[in-house]
């Protein structure tokens, strides 16, 4: 089984004033992260101050949208019933090329094909009212 995002009927994100730009970027097919102009760290998830230096000089910049799998789990018994149609599916934490980590689900891959260190790239998918940054292996394996 692999995830078919259009079939999911699951809770979506609740954007806040801090994160609106991130979700708007996803709608436009861009992975936008915050960049601290003071200490030059990239920041994810979106915040009002940099978690590295507490500066508020956070700019939005387009990220490469690539990274590698830091760790993963194959979910057999989802915490939310809406995910049951996709189970077993892969939840992974990605080390983004810019430094921050991001949790996501993997698409375009069977669970058996996932390992720590697997190179992946963002793949925007529509789920209900939202466009979410899922990730898929590069080059694609499925």
């Amino acid at each position, binding site marked *: 089984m692999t995830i078919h995002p259009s079939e999911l009927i699951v809770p979506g994100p609740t954007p806040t004033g801090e994160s609106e730009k991130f979700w708007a970027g996803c709608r436009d097919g861009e992975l936008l992260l915050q960049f601290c102009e003071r200490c030059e760290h990239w920041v994810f*998830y979106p915040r009002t101050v940099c978690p590295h230096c507490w500066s508020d000089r956070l700019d939005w910049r387009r990220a490469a949208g690539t990274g590698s799998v830091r760790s993963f789990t194959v*979910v057999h*018994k989802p*915490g*939310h019933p809406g*995910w049951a149609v996709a189970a077993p599916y892969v*939840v992974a934490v990605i080390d983004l090329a810019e430094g921050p980590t*991001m949790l996501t689900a993997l698409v375009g891959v069977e669970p058996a094909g996932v390992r*720590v260190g697997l190179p992946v790239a963002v793949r925007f998918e529509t789920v209900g009212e939202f466009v979410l940054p899922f990730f898929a292996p590069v080059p694609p394996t499925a």
Partner: protein
Amino acid sequence: MSGTRPTGAIVGVGELTPTRTTSGKTTLGMLAEASRLALEDSGLDRDRIDGLLVGPQVGETPQHVPATVAEYLGITPRMSNVVDLGGASGPGMIWRAAAAINAGMATAVLCVLGNHREPVPSRSPNRNPIREFDVPFGASGANTAYALLKTRHMHDFGTTDEQFASLAAVSRANAQSNPDAIFYGKPIDTAGILASPMIAEPLHLLEIVMPVAGGDAVIVMGAEAAEAATLRHAPVYLRGAGEMVTHRAMSQAPSYTTGPLKPSMAQALAQAGIGIDRIDLLSLYDCYTVMLAITIEDAGLCAPGQFGAWAAGRDLSHTGDVALNTHGGQLGFGQADLAGGMSHVVEAVRQLRGTADGRQMADAALALVTGNGATMSEAVALVLGRDR
């Protein structure tokens, strides 16, 4: 690391017997019952209680928690606070109580946690960073988070499913000496744990705590005041404490193979002036096998990645080489929500007093207690001693 040592004494403990669900009970009522048991156990008059530490949940009321609990209990504490460190809340309360006493703000502090559990739990609304950036990707709940830890541990160290399952088997075995444990009368071996359903690969069902209803309360006094008071049991002393908070969401954790308990345990042991080899009872927070595994390694009991070989060479029962979670741990006893973390404190007190009934250790003088909140996020370590 050196510096001042915390002083304080635990003079009373109370614990509700875990049940799968409650019906018609309130969290407030259960907090009160656990408190009553702790007071009875201490032998103190109720009017001696002048401090109150409670968890963030009283079920019905999201705000004004200390006031709600104080009103319900009919006490007027001179010091009160919510302690919100997830599973580490219980141990976190103990040193805070001692600190408040040392600051002259109270003389006898009630620390209490508990929860009711309806047959059909309700869902919380969609908010906060985890709900915005983790849950929409299918990562609801703690199971996926702890599975990420286990995957990375197996990848980095080559640890095996059997080694993780063996820790759950130890907990189940120890629970057979505790009639209050939810799995009392239900032993299971490593193979049985591996045969349980896969929940979030590589986590099996029986590597995960059983949620139960229950509650735990502890009363803390100053060491000298405790010695001057008329008590039912000898005081158990706080010898050292350490605490650290690092993150909330697993996606933001600084490491997947070591956690904030490492510096917390080191500080608690340094304050107590002892090494880990002096500890008689390990009362280690065990919401998942991987949490217990990493805590064993972070405590310095073995090298990183070596918990499996460490556990395999030892008898970890109350009569064994090293006593580990003699009440069954939460994996064998059950996890009564935030009170689950306090059960490790209560068990240590019982062993150090010599009142652990059918599972009493021969000569327990020092215990290491840990608490863990969220996913290796909120850490508290305590060293408790029979002697001051």
